[in-house]
């Protein structure tokens, strides 16, 4: 317990950095930028300590810190990571560096506030991933909204006020019902510890209500069809950095919520309502794929493609129950969840990179319309190369990280139901179609107008930015084993947890899952 408080440091270092940048004032842009970059880099290095010191052989929480916070209500400052949250924390600290660099030149208005908002948000998002106390989690979860609200509203596009208020209210709406569910569980378990929630025995009605409360919170965040409409608006209006954070990390928080709350706390409700999530995921994959096809706006197109990709994530998570229900198939459940996790990390890199690419164009031409471009590769060969590469990754080209996650999810889905996997796999053609068609219209062809003809290629800063992300995408695509190793024990434990019925004795008849007698319960 007396370990070095690495998680606390990862949370509060960027927040302190944000305050320092804020206190610097607006006088010197250089001081603000370099301080912000320094804090972002140091935070990333600190978070690497989490990866290095992580013991992949156990599903136990690691780097645990636990001190009373509000003693009268048993609320604690309780942090810890397992194989699910640790990679997401490293992703967060990693992506923030690029966001800081992306705002280097283009943000002219109150740059110190811009950078400070991102640094504070980084700390808060790490807090979301590492909180093991429900109140602490909720505080971080909601606090995340404030900097994002301001980022979109101040540095966003023309319709930013509408977009940012919609973003805030949607998310707020989803999460307050989760708060009631958390309070309810506090009275059932006597503490706010998420681990206690997970071992709590709940009746079917309570489980279903809690599941729905969680679903409202996480479905908005992921976002799932039909509560996805805030995302295209927010993405289009947000500044480049805001889009990157939204797509790369904020969406993952919804997926993380399913793994940390919905599945282990309400496994029976999840098992009986899994058809709902699977149906919504398939709609997201198929329908949103078609919607993406007709977009005129590059950012909107990528936003819709994000929704479709996140559909794979939720599909992978909830297909588990069908696999468990079928005794003939022994494995595959772990693969579904792991596939979803890989997909989340990979989508973090790819969507972040794609938004950075669009940002590069937008900084030069101030338009996101596909029709305003054409033949960019003639004037920007470096950019063209990167854009094509990330587009391929987005379409799930084998060798890139986009392929690994989707393939695993489809494989797992195949074990559950042929037609589901058919529905999930066919739209891969769609993904290829809308991304490559966009690339064809923007990057290739004749130089379309004088604005494109006047484009300058990537400077060294942008090249490094995109180059590092490209390397990450390739590395994860060719050799995903390190990532899978880290999460394997945790995911296996999670599957063991969700495969056991949690209903009280009186309701055992309704169990869709294995009875507790038949399978040894994994200790939380």
């Amino acid at each position, binding site marked *: 317990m007396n370990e070095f408080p690495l998680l606390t440091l990862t949370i509060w270092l960027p927040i302190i950095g944000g305050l320092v940048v804020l206190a610097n004032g607006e006088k010197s842009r250089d001081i603000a930028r370099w301080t912000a970059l320094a804090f972002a880099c140091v935070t990333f290095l600190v978070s690497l300590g989490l990866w290095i010191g992580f013991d992949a052989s156990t599903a136990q929480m690691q780097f645990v810190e636990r001190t009373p916070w509000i003693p*009268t209500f048993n609320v604690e400052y309780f942090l810890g990571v397992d194989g699910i949250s640790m990679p997401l924390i490293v992703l967060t600290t990693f992506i923030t560096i690029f966001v800081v660099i992306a705002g280097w030149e283009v943000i002219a208005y109150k740059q110190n506030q811009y950078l400070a908002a991102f640094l504070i948000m980084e700390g808060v998002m790490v807090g979301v991933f590492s909180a093991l106390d429900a109140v602490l989690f909720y505080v*971080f979860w909601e*606090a995340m909204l404030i900097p994002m609200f301001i980022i979109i509203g101040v540095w966003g596009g023309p319709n930013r006020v509408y977009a940012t*208020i919609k973003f805030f209210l949607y998310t707020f709406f989803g999460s307050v019902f989760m*708060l009631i569910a958390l*309070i309810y569980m506090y009275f059932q378990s006597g503490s706010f510890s998420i681990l206690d929630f997970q071992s709590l025995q709940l009746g079917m009605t309570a489980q279903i209500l809690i599941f729905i409360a969680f679903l409202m919170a996480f479905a908005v965040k992921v976002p799932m069809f039909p509560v996805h409409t805030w995302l295209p608006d927010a993405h289009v209006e947000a500044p480049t950095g805001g889009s990157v954070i939204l797509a790369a990390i904020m969406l993952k928080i919804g997926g993380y919520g399913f793994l940390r709350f919905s599945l282990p706390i309400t496994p029976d409700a999840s098992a009986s309502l899994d058809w709902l999530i699977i149906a919504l995921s398939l709609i997201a994959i198929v329908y949103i794929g078609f919607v993406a096809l007709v977009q005129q706006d590059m950012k909107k197109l990528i936003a819709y493609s994000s929704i479709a990709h996140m559909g794979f994530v939720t599909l992978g998570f909830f297909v588990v129950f069908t696999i468990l229900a079928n005794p003939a198939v022994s494995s595959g459940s772990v693969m579904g969840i792991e596939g979803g996790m890989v997909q989340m990390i990979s989508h973090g890199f790819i969507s972040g990179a794609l938004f950075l690419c669009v940002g590069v164009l937008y900084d030069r031409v101030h338009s996101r319309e596909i029709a305003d471009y054409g033949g960019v590769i003639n004037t920007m060969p470096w950019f063209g190369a990167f854009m094509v590469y990330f587009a391929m990754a987005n379409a799930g080209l084998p060798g890139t990280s986009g392929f690994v996650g989707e393939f695993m999810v489809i494989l797992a889905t195949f074990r559950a139901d042929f037609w589901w996997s058919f529905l999930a796999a066919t739209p891969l053609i769609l993904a290829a179609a809308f991304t490559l068609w966009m690339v064809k219209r923007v990057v290739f062809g004749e130089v379309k107008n004088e604005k494109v003809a006047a484009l300058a290629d990537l400077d060294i800063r942008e090249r490094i930015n995109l180059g590092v992300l490209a390397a990450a995408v390739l590395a994860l695509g060719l050799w995903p084993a390190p990532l899978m190793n880290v999460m394997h024990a945790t995911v296996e434990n999670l599957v063991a947890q969700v495969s056991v019925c949690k209903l009280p004795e009186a309701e055992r008849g309704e169990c869709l899952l294995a009875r507790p007698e038949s399978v040894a319960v994994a200790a939380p």
Partner: protein
Amino acid sequence: MPFDAANLLPVLPEIAVLVTACLVLVLDLFLKERDKGLNHSLSLLGLVVALLLTGAVGGGEPERLFDGNLVRDAMSDLLKGAILIVSMLAFVYARPWLKDRGMLSSEFYALGLLAILGMLVMVSANSFLTLYLGLELQALALYALVAFERDSLRGAEAAMKYFVLGALGSGMLLYGVSMIYGATGTIELGPVAQAIAEQGMSNKVLVFGVVFLVIGIGFKFGAVPFHMWVPDIYEGAPTPAVLILGSAPKIAAFALAVRMLVDAMQGLHSDWQDMLVILSVLSLGLGNLVAIAQSNIKRMLAYSTISHVGFIFLGLLAGSDQGNAAAMFYSIVYAVMSAGAFGILIILSRNGFDAERLEDLKGLNDRDSWYAAMMALVMFSMAGVPPTVGFMAKLLVLEAVVRIDMVWLALVAVFFSIIGAFYYLRVVKFIYFDKPAENAPALVTTSGVRVAMSLNGLALLALGLFPAALLTLCQSAFV
């Protein structure tokens, strides 16, 4: 009645405030125009002394004073401290406004101090008579305060409305008290509670009395459907007056409700619980919905007050120690938030111009980013967004409501707070997303105001991150 040290010592804070009020009144006669600032310094000094005295005589076992008419207990200590601190903030914020308009005379300070004295008496009252005395002292001073800008027609109209409706509310309260006196034969809170415990709920007169008490309390809080005066007064009264009547009196009103309903009427809990449920749901709904339609920020804050009152009632109606502590926490936090919000409005005002439209906040971030951040903190706190203390206050209240198995009420409350979030966000939108009006002059503020506002705003953040201390204090008042 024994006027000895044992009785007088615990009321030293009240005595200090009274002495200051008298001193200010007399001293003002001998002050030249340019020395009027002394009124301010003296009043502030008086409040500081009263605060120190509260700390000095506070703590320890509850003491019954003056034949049981007053009491000094953990609740009165804490609430007195909160009232004095919030009032200090209000006085500091009000100074530039008064100075600009040449109104640094004794009226504002003497009336303000008398209102504070009334609140202090309410907080430690232990019989219906003392409660009523404190309430009226506070109310009369506030009526006059609303009208202290002599030439303002709007102010006079607001004061008139406030007076008529306030008197009506007091009348209801008094009527209820008289019935309870008739049924129990006493006006002291403890004996009333005893009498109710013995008689039980059989006595119809008693229940009838409770109805009128709740109406009176509803009037004083401004709960729907007794809320009509609130928006008009907030809009019509000069901002410094709203600053005083919109902040600390909520704490005093909370004390009024606790003394009457909890200390005396706990035996009839099931009766007043239902009434408070109705008042609270209506206040939450109407307050939040109507606030959206306001373009005048003072009116908007008035409706926001109404919705916050709904939350305070949620805590009270639980009838448990946790619920009362939660409501107490909420009242104190609300008073601090309210002081901050009206303080910003005063900072934005200057001679001949009162900031009261939402547009007046436009581009505050460009004009002064520190004040903008403070106002944003106040707004997020009112909306109940973590990590500000507004969230903690709501969390505690919801917890108390879920604890008594009224989950539906908690759902109603959070539903309306989502709606409420919209108009608080709109204020943030004006501050951060809009550019300032072209003719907007730079903000001129004194360092005193800046320090006070910083403390005010950062307190909302600090209490949100470390709520345990204040919460423990609140809970210690109900054990």
